[in-house]
């Protein structure tokens, strides 16, 4: 394992070191004293695991293609921007615009997430990006969602009275699926969204993804599966069909 | 409006001499050489630059300033007093010349920027930069005042008239310098303004120039980006400032600066060895807007030497010659022969290939 002390190092130099370590085949990298450095894991490929102590800066895992990033603390905005594959595990909360245009891989967050999470996520072929957040989400959850799976668990629901998901959930959604643990208020969903109960297949899928999630955070899968889920999918394939005159 | 100016266009002849040992030569030589080429000018401008002429004040900046009227002098001196220690101030020594009936008031000052920070604008600037700023300020902000020389131990002398007349007016034969340049001018419009004659100088750079810089428009805008104020409406000013920027501010050597200003063609660059090719490619990329395009031959003087060069397809003439430690350059061979009848070597430099003569030792 290679340990890199990130204290006071500018992101460009830090990421250069990370790239070099990964390029020479280092499987385990530990970044200590990270605080605010942007772009950790940006465009990185391979199968290394990079553990981050401290709060990493924005665009963590942007364009990433393969590695696993483990953040022991909270993380900021734009995580997994246009990520292709790999895994990001955040032990704390995370910010806004997570998984923008994400095409594959997994983003597991133990805590709450901000606005516009899973925006424009897309599946492609066998790739199905997955974002699972253990807490609550802000507005515009799954905006323009075109593919993949978004799961919101509200594990610590009793702690505050906010609804699990914010306003305009799934607005512009035209692909993929959102699962929300607990009830969903139709008023908070975009016009393009239909709300149903998950079927048997869905529950199987949920269990599969959540088992992996629980392993990351040492949680009890059976406890989580006890709760009920709602499933959000696009109501229409052509929501804007009548908008234009030809 | 920086774009809304009228550009001054002129043809001309030029001549230059340097003694590489630093031996000082009387101004009568350059005047004689230049007078042979009278037909290249039309009497609307001539001038000289000389290095080594003020040995007793060589640590001070010598400002030569023209004034249209006493009010301009008052304003200028007020500014100078605030910012400079004025060691000596005197009217420029001149002699009456029958054909020169009107001339501006011409004064010279030997000065040093005040080092006491409180009493001088922009105290953090180096002396040279501060002098450049002073020249830009006076020339662009005080109407009717014009600093036409600002270097150390050197000076420019210029005005409206034929080369012989201007030489007599400024008593050129009384000065001795180790470098001389001279210029006779053929402007195609008639501003009748003394400041429009060559040489153009800034600090100890001096330029005399034959031809027109067809790339003037972009060269001017490029320099303006670096804070130069192009007030004189002539492309020669551009050359002066380009040298100032590339050599003094950017630290390029004179040869590299000349290469940037009259660069080789891509075809030739592509054939070079890798390192040189990369260097030349970068030079053209970075200094694209400094490329001087169009017909020109230029003599560029500075305290350590004299450089002659012409445009990259040789649209204006330049001849160089050597005899002993003296190097001559001129628009026409005959102008050299007039003062050096039998040089050891005489040649016409190739396009874009500078002749660099520097003081030895």
């Amino acid at each position, binding site marked *: 394992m290679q340990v890199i002390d990130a204290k006071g190092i500018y992101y460009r130099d830090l990421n250069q070191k990370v790239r070099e370590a990964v390029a020479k085949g280092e499987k385990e990298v530990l970044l200590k004293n990270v605080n605010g450095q942007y772009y950790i894991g940006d465009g990185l490929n391979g199968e290394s695991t990079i553990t981050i102590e401290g709060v990493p800066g924005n665009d963590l895992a942007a364009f990433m293609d393969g590695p696993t990033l483990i953040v022991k603390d909270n993380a900021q905005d734009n995580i997994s921007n246009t990520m292709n594959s790999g895994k990001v595990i955040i032990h704390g909360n995370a910010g806004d615009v997570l998984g923008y245009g994400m095409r594959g891989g997994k983003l597991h967050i133990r805590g709450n997430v901000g606005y516009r999470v899973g925006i424009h996520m897309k599946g492609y072929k066998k790739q199905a990006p997955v974002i699972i957040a253990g807490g609550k989400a802000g507005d515009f959850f799954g905006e323009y969602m075109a593919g993949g799976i978004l799961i919101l668990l509200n594990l610590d629901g009793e702690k505050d009275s906010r609804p699990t998901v914010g306003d305009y959930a799934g607005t512009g959604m035209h692909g993929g699926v959102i699962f929300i643990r607990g009830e969903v208020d139709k008023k908070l969903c975009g016009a393009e969204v239909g709300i149903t109960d998950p079927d048997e297949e869905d529950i199987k899928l949920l269990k599969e993804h959540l088992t992996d999630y629980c392993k990351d955070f040492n949680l009890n899968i059976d406890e989580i599966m006890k709760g009920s889920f709602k499933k959000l999918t696009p109501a229409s394939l052509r929501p804007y069909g009548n908008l234009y005159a030809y | 409006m920086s774009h809304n100016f009228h550009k001054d266009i002129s043809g001309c002849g030029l001549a230059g001499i340097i003694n590489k040992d630093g031996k000082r030569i009387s101004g009568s030589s350059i005047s004689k050489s230049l007078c042979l080429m009278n037909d290249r000018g039309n009497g609307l401008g001539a001038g000289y630059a000389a290095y080594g002429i003020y040995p007793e004040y060589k640590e001070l900046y010598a400002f030569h300033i023209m004034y249209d009227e006493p009010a301009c002098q008052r304003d200028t001196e007020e500014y100078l007093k605030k910012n400079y220690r004025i060691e000596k101030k005197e009217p420029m020594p001149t002699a009456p010349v029958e054909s020169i009936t009107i001339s501006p008031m011409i004064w010279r000052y030997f000065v040093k920027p005040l080092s006491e920070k409180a009493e001088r604008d922009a105290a953090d600037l180096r002396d040279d930069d501060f002098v450049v700023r002073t020249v830009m300020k006076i020339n662009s902000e005080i109407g009717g005042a014009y600093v036409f020389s600002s270097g150390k131990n050197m000076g420019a002398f210029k005005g409206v008239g034929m080369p012989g007349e201007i030489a007599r007016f400024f008593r050129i034969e009384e000065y001795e310098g180790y470098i001389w340049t001279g210029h006779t001018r053929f402007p195609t419009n008639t501003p009748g303004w003394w400041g429009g004659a060559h040489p153009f100088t800034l600090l100890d750079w001096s330029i005399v120039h034959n031809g027109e810089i067809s790339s003037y428009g972009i060269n001017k805008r490029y320099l303006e980006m670096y804070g130069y104020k192009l007030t004189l409406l002539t492309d020669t000013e551009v050359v002066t400032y380009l040298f100032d920027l590339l050599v003094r501010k950017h630290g390029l050597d004179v040869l590299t600066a000349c290469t940037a200003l009259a660069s080789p063609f891509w075809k030739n660059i592509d054939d070079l060895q890798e390192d040189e090719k990369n260097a030349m490619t970068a030079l053209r990329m970075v200094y694209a*807007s400094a490329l001087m395009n169009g017909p020109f031959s230029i003599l560029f003087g500075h305290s350590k030497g004299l450089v002659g060069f012409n445009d990259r*397809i040789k649209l204006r003439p330049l001849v160089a010659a050597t005899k002993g430690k003296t190097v001559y350059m001129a628009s026409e061979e005959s102008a050299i022969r007039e003062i050096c009848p039998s040089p050891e070597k005489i040649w016409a430099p190739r396009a874009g290939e500078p002749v660099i003569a520097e003081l030895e030792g």
Partner: protein
Amino acid sequence: MFKSLAVPEFLAKIDQIKCIKCKRCIQNCGWSVYAWGGDKVLIDTFKCVKCLRCYHYCPEEAITIEDNPVKYRSNANWGFYNIRNIKRQAETGGIPLTGMGSDMPYPVLFDSLLIDACQVTNPSIDPLREPMELRTYLGKKPAKLEFENGPDGKPKLKTKMPPQIKLEAPFIFAPMSYGSISLNAQKTIAIAAKELGIVMNTGEGGLHEDIYPYRSNIIVQVASGRFGVNPDYLNAGVAVEIKIGQGAKPGIGGHLPGEKIPLDIAKTRMIPVGTDAISPAPQHDIYSIEDLRQLIFAIKEATNYTKPVSVKIAAVHNVAAIASGIVRAGADIVYIDGFRGGTGAAPSIIRDHLGIPIEHALAAVDERLRQEGIRNEASIIAAGGIRSCADAAKAIALGADAVALATSALITMGCTVCGKCYTGNCSWGITTQRPELTVRLDPEVYAERLINLIHAWSHELKEILGALGVNAIESLRGSRERLRGIGLDSQTLDILGVKPVGR
């Protein structure tokens, strides 16, 4: 019963005496104007867009397409399209769509600028027999260079140069995605770009495997839809472009409906077949200028600082300040698209009424970057309404490093600027994905025509440089002194930084 109260714009006519009933018109028309009636060709003139495909393919010259002489009563205020659009909206309740650049009669400043030429005081140069250089490098240039002496005594570069795009002429092909145009049209452009030593741009539709061989002549685009974007894609071309906006539709996004997403396009965009391809209006990771900086450097990190990053914006009112921010955010290239720029589909209300012309925008941006002393930090690409080499030369004199061409490139493939790209019926096989139409566009054949166009423009540009007495494009670039305005008011002249003719 009438079909529509919107009067047809064109009348397709067949001279039945000349017609040999070969049915080529029926086969060629992508709009189904013609049908076989058993003994003669029937015409549904409401569908005609005057693309002239049938006219060119009629062996007997039996077809004429006329502007419909039946117009609404003439009215200086209520023009034909005002009335017609209201009727269409009354019938559909929708937003009228359009394609190509605006055809509204706004003043075109390029047509009010004249270029200088040398007479006597400086010589013109013969461009056919003397060297004349058009080579252009796009990218960030350091303000100054440092050299050291190499082992051979020759100067060796000490400054590390940022990555550059090398162009053999100051032209590039503007972004047009696979989806907005056919793959054959993209291939045509790619072949031409490679042959010409210039670059094309993928647009936001991803990079099709057939285009990969041309990667050294390709800029890959990252837009709000992030279609086809992954680390391989970012590293595939010679540069990466972040698309913020487009001249024809500033401030709005794009939408390729699912039924226009067949397998091949879906593959290129990396989305499932049949799903809508939505490009949101903003990039949702950019809500402010510091976010743009964040994305620029996210891309630089992903490409290890080996590719210049371009940022494309629509020309809008405050474009100079925006461009300055973009440069300060770290962009190597600023691509400015004027409001007359083309589009595959845009609401006509947006296309015709939002944004500003490229001439004003370019002049303002170049001047602003110079005033701020950062013009060297980024190259400027001007686009949106470059119709000829004259426009290109004037744009370069105003300050552009290169100009981008799209409509003119499509015209070489048969386009007649009919403006109906959004229907997907292009009879020339350009803005359509219908296989029976796209097959008409043979990339090898049409690339030759496109190469001819750029060669012709390059020759014209050299003629202009020669007349100006300069022999390198950089001596024209930004040299507004070589332009004069004719018939322009003093404020416009001031914005353009040019003097009026006669001064």
